[in-house]
């Protein structure tokens, strides 16, 4: 697994486009790899933000999943929330791989900070 990590980071950045629309307070994730079936359940988006993005509180957002076009559209009620999540998305894939790398090396300090995840 460890030897895969550097390439995983690149694969994530390659496979997922992130578009921020500040005017409409939306963030759109587009998965470019062909996915069979459902690309995500809405609750998985929140888990991803908490687990890899360091989100510690609930941010109100509307989550729309467009399986046909492989898009996840997050719509926010205010600019502050939009900005916070947009900031998280700037480095979420790097964070995810770094977290994984640390865990493989038995460094669980950052994992301890992840809030409870309701799987």
């Amino acid at each position, binding site marked *: 697994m460890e030897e895969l990590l550097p390439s*995983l980071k690149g694969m994530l950045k390659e496979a997922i486009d992130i578009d921020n629309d500040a005017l409409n307070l939306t963030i759109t994730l587009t998965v470019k*790899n062909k996915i069979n079936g459902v690309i995500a359940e809405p609750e*998985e988006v929140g*888990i991803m933000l908490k687990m890899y993005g360091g989100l510690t509180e609930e941010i109100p957002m509307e989550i729309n999943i467009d399986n046909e076009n492989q898009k996840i559209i997050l719509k926010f009620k205010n600019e502050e929330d939009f900005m916070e999540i947009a900031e998280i998305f700037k480095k979420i894939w790097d964070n995810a791989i770094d977290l994984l790398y640390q865990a493989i090396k038995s460094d669980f300090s950052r994992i301890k900070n992840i809030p409870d995840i309701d799987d």
Partner: protein
Amino acid sequence: MTDPNAIKNNPFIELGEIPEKKYKEGYIIETAYITVRDGVKIAATICLPKGLPPNAKIPTVLTQTRYWRAMELRIPFRWILDSMVPNAPNPEVVTSRGYALIYTDVRGTGASTGSRTTPFSEEEVKDGYDIVEWIIAQPWSDGNVVSKGISYTGITAEMFARNLHPAIKAVIPGHGFWDPYTDVAFPGGCFDYGFIQMWSFIGKNLDLNNPKVFRQVMPDAWLVVKGVKSVKSDKDLELLNEAITQHKSNQYVYEHTLDKSYRDDQILDGSSFDDFSVFAHKQEIARSNLPILAWCSWLDSGYGDAIIHRFMNTPNPHIAILGDWSHGAILPANQFFPNRTTVTPAPRDKVNAWINFYDKCIYGEGIQGKVIYYYTLVEEKWKKSNVWPPFGHNYQKWYFSDNFTLTQEKPESTVGEDSYKVNFRATTGRNNRWWALLGLPITYENRAKVDEKLICYTSQPLESDTEITGQIILCLYLKSTHDDGSIFAYFEDVDENGKITYITDGEFRVIHRKILTENPPYKILIPYHSYKKEDAAPLVPGEITEIKFGLHSTSVLIKKGHRIKIGIAGADKDTFIRYPAEGRPTITISRNSTYASYLEIPIIKKQQEGEK
């Protein structure tokens, strides 16, 4: 093998060069439910070479697991990787060599329906037959099936031979047991509660598709894994949910073993450990006459002994390999080279070697006779033998002597004994050979510090290089203040600078000390203890008793100028349950002309020039 320069007798080289790939475009993944004779649905993941011509027929490698055949990943990992496949051979390598790879969840686990009472149940084994029938009915199958696995899947791979199905052509059990009582659950009659408890806990949560458990025990997996992978046709997950409901009636070994001690205790549904052992079924495996390639490490639990016992007790065409790595060859484990970071050969190269073995069995002349390859620590060389123990094997006695020494001269004095009050804080920690079964590293560090809690005996520097290969036998004449207890014996190398390195160990619960003269259920090279209730007897406090047992197999070169050391403890607190449950015994080891405690060390006499 971690010394890449060790070429001669290297089994991975002798299994042949890696040929050109037959298929170079990758592989496709399908999933299916295979309905077996009683209606249970076995979840299967099938990898086929991409670009396989419609009329092409290929053989199949089958791996049957209880740890999820494939994992549903969390987003975003699910978007870039199809699934994670623990314990299964690399699908890219297998399919590129022109084999289909199928991995299944055994009944009662993963996405398969049904429930389970014991591991490796008769029904689980019989499922193998039905799975073969399904495989050979597929349009791409050439009618040949081989099995492969590590740990649990290694044992299912070997049990697969019991089906006596003509389509089965070879089996590769890796890092599996032969005798679950002595190899893992009760080594020397001591309950390995540490591993068994954790293994049962993990198994239960896997069966209930509860990934939360990983956060505590396997955080790296928790970050990536959402749960077991469903079968694609089960779109609304109805069957997966039904399967998980059925798994709620599963039984787990730990809760049925905690109050047990004996080999013949019934632990689950009237079964004893022997019922799901490999040795109890050795005649069926022999009847299959299937070629076996069995591999493991000296340092992995009691599974190194399993390799030797399988080799000695099965007549099948046989290649056995014993190396110096951790469970599943994930990490190096040679204690003499703690700074090594990788295992050679790499996993991909190992899988290629296994496919070479299958190729020989399916397309070639098969495997003739038996050969065991074993790696000698410190000498850092592969060796091979057609018999076990190998040629030149001879026992050398080392007596416990005064001033905590080991000597080859039997004590002449009529008096001589040493007392030791058992220290129940003594431990080898959680990176020992037993916890290694969970994939943890094997590191016996700071032996000098650990040995302070033990009673130890050390030899003078050896006058020549000495190869020890086999099982050391420890014979203690001791008395105790209590009627129960256990002995943990650590065999170590001490270099010229006083650095102590762990080589092997053995453990034994004293109530099992009776040595039987009848034939054991399989050939062994150490004193035969039945571990049955009828043969158990408490110690008589204050009375000297013979306690004689074997340590786990090893192969090591003790260099000229190094000393050998034996450390004796009465507990290993993070792994084994304590005996007695209460109280703190004092044991007294006799070392005199009447009661001369000793070690019998299997020495390999060096071959002279011209000697065969």
